[in-house]
């Protein structure tokens, strides 16, 4: 899901920086108004969790791997705006220090995983959990469903961005200049593994951590 440098043409990665930048701006402005400095450690924890959980690669049939992102769990606990900042920080460090995801693709990767993933996870959780008690089972179910769908939203966006490249960017001879596979390949390839495995892993991790927090640190679920 971390698109490397060279897979997206300038039109696509430029557009996605353009779309993501206002979300970064609004999220910072929102934190500026609402975040108290005693909450800073939680933002750091969220970013660190997102970073490290993405290192747990899981093999899937067909010889590739994937992983959870922790985005929905962070969104449930900290809200969508803090999540956009926390997960974006993790993605920036992954790209700069470890070459996981491209520099030119940072706008795209932050949009897919942090912005769209965070807003979808938070929104779905809030709708399903609305009005439920902090310690209720419904919160766990809501978070699990939200995590599952959110990761698949991120995967689908990634697949679409990769899959439109052969349509947008071709040499005069008609050869793809960037990511070579069409939508008919990228969407099934990305969605199958996320629908059947990685989305389920994301849901289970989210529910397990939340259940622990419900029992031991219910204050954290007050949001």
């Amino acid at each position, binding site marked *: 899901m971390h698109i490397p440098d*060279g897979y997206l043409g300038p039109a696509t990665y430029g557009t996605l920086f353009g779309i993501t930048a206002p979300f970064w701006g609004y999220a910072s402005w929102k934190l500026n108004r609402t975040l108290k400095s005693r909450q800073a450690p939680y933002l750091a*924890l969220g*970013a660190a969790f997102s970073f*490290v959980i993405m*290192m747990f690669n899981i093999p899937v049939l067909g010889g590739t791997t994937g992983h959870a992102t922790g985005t929905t769990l962070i969104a449930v606990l900290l809200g969508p705006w803090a999540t956009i900042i926390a997960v974006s920080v993790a993605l920036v460090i992954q790209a700069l220090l470890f070459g996981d995801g491209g*520099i030119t693709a940072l706008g795209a990767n932050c949009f897919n995983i942090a912005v769209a993933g965070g807003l979808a996870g938070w929104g779905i959780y809030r709708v399903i959990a609305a009005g439920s008690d902090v310690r209720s089972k419904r919160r766990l179910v809501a978070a699990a469903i939200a995590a599952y769908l959110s990761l698949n939203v991120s995967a689908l966006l990634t697949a679409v961005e990769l899959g439109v490249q052969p349509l947008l960017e071709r040499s005069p001879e008609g050869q793809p200049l960037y990511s070579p596979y069409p939508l008919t390949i990228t969407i099934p390839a990305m969605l199958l593994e996320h629908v059947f495995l990685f989305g389920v892993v994301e849901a289970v991790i989210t529910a397990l951590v939340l259940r622990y927090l419900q029992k031991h640190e219910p204050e954290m679920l007050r949001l």
Partner: protein
Amino acid sequence: MKTVSKLWIGIAVLALLSPLGLIIPALFGAGGAWGEWSAEELRDLIGYVPAGMEKLSRLWSSPMPDYSVPGPRRGLFGESLGYMLTAVIGVAVTAGLAYLLAMWAGRKNRQQ
């Protein structure tokens, strides 16, 4: 113990367990993620490297590519240690940067 300290212990445990994310795929003979091949790997798949990708993919060379520490290959055990070390470094840098951003963002609300 304070909530924050307990959660940090959880993150530390995850960082120490992170080599599982390297070892388990290796046991199954799985490579990287779909759509994240290097230019050379893509050449093996489709027979050529797209011209635009050729240029862009060399734009940035990270200091610890694929969560490995610089130096010669050391087998799965050595790579696992490197993976764990990069997890610790990554967690520390990520948390530090996020903390600074949060302190900066929340600077007006310091007293609360």
